[in-house]
């Protein structure tokens, strides 16, 4: 069972946002920090929910019994990009944050997921196994111009664009999972962590740190870590229980 909690970035003042009725993963802040999107469960299916942090009110993003997951807001907060799986195929869709009919952005056979907007909202980086293994791809925000950008060894997953737009953090799978960064062109790959399973990168608002979660071998215990993108050992972030799927909020006043 997992629940969503919010805490200060030093680990203090944590509080729960969701109850214990369903497993929840992949919470991500809105650009203004007033809402979250996350993947919860309804009728045994993973489903994207939007929750207002102040009131706790939440709503299903796409009604109708479909499997939806891996949501993120657009930089202006007006749209939510996410994955929908059906018929053995997972594609990326976008929908108004207030609801409406989703628009399909990818249609290649395979698992297209983990979409993340560029800070100017013009492009989306995502992962796809359309080539046979998970790799990173880029497309225009409307779905055009899809092209692969990762060509190193191993598989690449869960990309997320840096606040300044100059880097993309990702999970590289080569036996173990490691966190790394690359240029949006796919060059300049640097691996920043060396755990058994490090995944789910999230940028600090200043673009200097990437937070992620590390799963321990055998026990499955998870913990949050932050690493400086210029190097150095990842530092563990305190949480009251096992923590995973971090999302660093925009700066608060």
């Amino acid at each position, binding site marked *: 069972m*997992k*629940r*969503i*909690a*919010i*805490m200060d*970035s*030093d680990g203090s003042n*944590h509080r729960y946002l969701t109850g*214990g009725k369903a*497993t*929840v993963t*992949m*919470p*991500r*802040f809105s650009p203004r*920090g007033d809402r979250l999107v996350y*993947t919860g469960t*309804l*009728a*045994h*299916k*993973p489903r994207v929910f939007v929750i207002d942090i102040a009131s706790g009110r939440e709503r299903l993003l796409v*009604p*109708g*019994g*479909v499997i939806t997951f891996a949501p993120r807001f657009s930089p202006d907060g007006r749209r939510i990009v996410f*994955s929908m*799986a*059906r*018929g*053995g195929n*997972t594609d990326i869709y976008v929908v108004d944050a207030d609801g409406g009919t989703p628009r399909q952005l990818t249609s290649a056979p395979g*698992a297209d997921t983990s979409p993340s907007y560029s800070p100017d909202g013009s492009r989306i980086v995502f*992962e796809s*196994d359309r080539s046979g293994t*998970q790799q990173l791809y880029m497309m225009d925000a409307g779905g055009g111009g899809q092209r692969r950008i990762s060509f190193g060894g191993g598989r690449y*997953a*869960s990309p997320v664009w840096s606040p300044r737009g100059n880097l993309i953090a990702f999970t590289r*799978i080569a036996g173990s999972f490691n966190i790394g960064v690359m240029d949006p062109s796919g060059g300049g790959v640097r691996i920043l962590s060396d755990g058994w399973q490090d*995944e*789910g990168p999230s940028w600090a608002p*200043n673009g200097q*740190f990437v937070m992620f*979660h590390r*799963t321990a*071998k*055998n026990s*499955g215990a998870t913990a949050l870590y932050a690493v400086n993108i210029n190097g150095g050992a990842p530092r563990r972030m305190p*949480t009251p*229980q*096992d*923590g*995973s*799927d*971090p*999302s*660093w*909020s925009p*700066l608060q006043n």
Partner: protein
Amino acid sequence: MRKTVTLGMAAIALTIAGCARKQAAPEVAPPVEQAPPGEAAAPGDVELVELPAAQADLVAKAGSDTVYFGTDKYDLDEATRATLAAQARWLIANPNVRASIEGHCDERGTREYNMALGERRANAARDFLLSQGVPAARLLVTSWGKERPVAPGSNEEAWAQNRRAVTVLVR
């Protein structure tokens, strides 16, 4: 830049210890009836009610409610097809229940990818049940990704048990 500046808040998923949920039938009977859905609920947006007694009968008659897959695979081998064929016979003989076909993955995929892979596995099992004559309206497909492993540990034996699709009877 000051190094002590607070960088804002983080939202995280906190794991509540000891709540690994088994797919096996619970020991208590399910609630008789769920609360009616809100007016806005669309088809498929209503919580499912599991059926422990029927589930036990499916396991007894079909041999298993679970089929297994290779690493990062979702194709059905001979043994898997035989198990699913037996499940299909049970479903055809028991027309009053639906089945939620639920795909799961081992830990060696990322969270998002495993959601997609679990759906592929469940969909492959569903397609075979359809081919055996189970009506489409009675078959639901879902994925738990790597969220509900049945076997702990980071070894091939555990991974093999976790790469599965479970036929969960519901109404």
